[in-house]
């Protein structure tokens, strides 16, 4: 349970850092670290072959969301 515990503690820490960070763009690195921890927790808590696909879908999806948020703010700044 030590490894799962470390993942969950890191995920909660990063989530809190993201909540208390004011700048939206600076929230994204904390969210990225949180996504790493959540992906690790998914795999460690549910070790099944299908979980590989689930974990990668979650991670790529969350990265795509961060990409979309950052690109949208970048296009606003350009305008």
């Amino acid at each position: 349970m030590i490894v799962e515990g470390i993942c969950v503690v890191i995920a909660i820490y990063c989530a809190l850092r993201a909540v208390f960070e004011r700048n939206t763009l600076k929230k994204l690195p904390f969210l990225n670290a949180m996504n790493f921890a959540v992906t690790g927790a998914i795999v460690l808590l549910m070790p099944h072959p299908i979980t590989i696909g689930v974990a990668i879908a979650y991670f790529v999806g969350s990265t795509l969301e961060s990409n979309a948020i950052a690109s949208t703010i970048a296009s606003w700044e350009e305008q």
Partner: protein
Amino acid sequence: MIDILLAIPIAAVICLLLFGSIDFFWKLPKTGGVSGANAIEKAIENTGGDKNGGWMIGNIVTSPDASAGTLLAACGFYIWGIPGAIISIVLVFAGARICADKGYAGTSGAFAAAIVIWLLTTFAGFPPESFIVACIIAILFVQGISTKYASRIIGKIWRKLS
């Protein structure tokens, strides 16, 4: 088999060196790959961070790079051994294309991590789950403690190496 509490810090240093060197090889701190990465670089630079470090952090956030490849290869290897790692490499390649990333940092990172994890678990007795936690701790130091100081350290190392 090495004790997990001893294996995690050693594996964290190995993961940090592995994905750091692959990201530097693919020149992630040189420039932003997508417009979002440039926006994150500007936000970090405005609060006292470094330009090159900001680009690297921006690129890590906006597309699956070598650190993501390392984590996902570790996850695949933990669940299903070598076939799981191969599935991870293929899905990381697809994921990078979905995120409009033209580079191969994620795919090569997953491939290199799969080989390193296989070697260390087979011959050195590291538990496979230690690499999952190790990669999360390594990325916590890059992204989750202070982007200002992390970007400065990355920028310094990048300028020395290039």
